[in-house]
């Protein structure tokens, strides 16, 4: 089924891909290369002199227990976000997949949070869970829970995860719904006739058939948690208290922009980039192999 289009004009194909290529060059490859170059340099505190130091920035980073802490924190953070938003989205999608009246209305409502800007989402959750302003926080205190995300690192982490996962649920929901709808109805009917109850049907037929979707979403959610949660963290906790919510991306920003350590910051972003490349590579290999069961 391969069809090769042959262009009459020699330069036309290049012209056609040029806009896309220019954008990628200007906004990805150029800054990425700059970051790689920067990661080999060391600037003095006033930015007056720059020396080439090779891999010293990287070695320094790996020796830092703080960096290691941020790595672990980021993995925990991502796992929590992916786990909670995926399972909740799947639950919602399974419910929404049932033939009920008004389904378009609530499906639309379920998709809306995706359109909320990260910082706005952060602020929304702060209003609910702020120790002195939040309605929900008040309720938690009434239950005897000493809820204080401003001082307690774990509480802050929960807060950020809640906001970040909430925003991602809509996206996951959409994919799950599409995935559920692509499962032939007759297969589930066959399972019903084969004596499988609703729960067993879900775990032995629906869930295995959703695995390609689930895997795809896990990767997307981890990438989201790695990078796109910057706005939420910045608006909600600023990485605090005491670095409890300082993920790798946020650390790049803190060290580079606020700390002025451009070399180390560049080295961190190069390492981050490599992690995402690995993740994406895994995804492509897996998806290609597994997309048709």
């Amino acid at each position, binding site marked *: 089924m391969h069809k090769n289009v042959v262009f009459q004009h020699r330069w036309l194909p290049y012209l056609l891909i040029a806009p896309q290529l220019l954008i990628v060059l200007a906004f990805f490859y150029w800054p990425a290369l700059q970051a790689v170059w920067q990661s080999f340099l060391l600037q003095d505190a006033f930015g007056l002199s720059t020396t080439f130091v090779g891999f010293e920035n990287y070695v320094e980073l790996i020796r830092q227990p703080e960096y290691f802490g941020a790595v672990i924190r980021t993995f925990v953070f991502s796992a929590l976000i992916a786990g909670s938003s995926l399972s909740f989205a799947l639950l919602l999608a399974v419910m929404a997949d049932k033939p009920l009246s008004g389904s378009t209305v609530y499906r639309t409502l379920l998709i809306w949070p995706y359109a909320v800007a990260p910082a706005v989402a952060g602020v929304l959750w702060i209003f609910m869970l702020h120790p002195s302003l939040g309605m929900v926080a008040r309720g938690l205190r009434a239950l005897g829970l000493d809820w204080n995300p401003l001082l307690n690192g774990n509480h802050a982490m929960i807060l950020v995860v809640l906001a970040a996962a909430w925003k991602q649920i809509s996206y996951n929901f959409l994919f799950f719904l599409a995935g559920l709808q692509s499962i032939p109805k007759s297969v589930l*009917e*066959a399972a*019903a006739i*084969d004596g*499988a109850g609703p729960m067993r049907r879900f775990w032995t037929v629906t869930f295995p058939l959703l695995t390609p979707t689930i895997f795809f979403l896990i990767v997307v959610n981890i990438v989201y948690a790695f990078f796109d949660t910057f706005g939420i963290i910045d608006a909600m906790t600023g990485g605090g208290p005491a670095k409890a919510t300082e993920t790798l991306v946020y650390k790049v920003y803190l060290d580079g922009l606020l700390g002025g350590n451009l070399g180390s910051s560049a080295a961190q972003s190069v390492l981050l980039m490599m992690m995402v490349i690995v993740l994406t590579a895994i995804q492509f290999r897996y998806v290609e192999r597994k997309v048709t*069961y």
Partner: protein
Amino acid sequence: MANVTLRNVRKTYPGGFEAIKGIDVAVGDGQFCVLVGPSGCGKSTLLRMVAGLETISSGEIEIGERVVNTIEPADRDIAMVFQNYALYPHMTVYNNMAYGLRNRGMPKPEIEQRVREAARILEIEALLDRKPRQLSGGQRQRVAMGRAIVRQPKVFLFDEPLSNLDAKLRIAMRVEIRKLQRRLATTSIYVTHDQLEAMTLADILVVMNGGVVEQIGSPLEVYHRPATTFVASFIGAPPMNLIALEGSELRRQLGDHGDATTLGIRPEDLTLTSGDAGDGGLALKLRVDAVERVGPESFVYGRPGDHQGEAEIIVRVAGEHTPALGEHVLAVASRAKLHLFGRDGRRLEP
């Protein structure tokens, strides 16, 4: 082993559309019943109601002396073969067949034995470790059959199981399904829109149209004595010639024809001749429009020469010797071969 009895079964959808308008069918133990009709006639809906996949608006469905109206599909002791096979794509052939048995908590050795036995009968032993996507259409069809027979249910339900296969394979599988059903002697209900499939498979043929039963009977009964003009035109290929009698000079030819408004005559009951009918039968003057030769037989299409507007008449001729295009011929049929239908489309007893 079980009878299946449908008593005044109706299906009305929430929108008010009545898909099934009161159907009574009785399928005896071990019989092969075929529901046939054009698409949208309600035959699949009816089958799904027997399976328990659609609710029953009113009436009763009985499987083996037990009313199953409110019983879950799993507990009706039926097995169904779907049009798209509905195999579990993530399971091997073995697991596809074993799934229903495992759900019922059957011990492992017995599952193994039953699956192997079914695989042997269907000649798919070599495929047990494959996934459905690695199988051809015909092999998937066999696995779907295997999944049905391992359960040893009271009733088999088939929902157009052959319509996704190519013509040659369809004929081969048709014969196999029939042989298998005879051997297992399991009551079966089979839905199809293909009248040839219906004729060859059925013990009892149920011809449906627009949510009602047009006729129930053995295939040959239905063929030789169609109860309505619909059945007459639906069963048989090419279909029966139906000629409106109103304002036709045929009225005179037939003499006493009661209240008949439509005359039916099968293409094979017409003979091309140079003489005339003689025995008070029918004689049609035709101008040959088209000829189809299919080898052992040929079909001659013609219009009554003096009536341009009238319907085309098909005559089946043995062999390949046919009149030339544009030639005028005489087609005759004996009185005994004519079917007469009244104004409501129902057969008049001749």
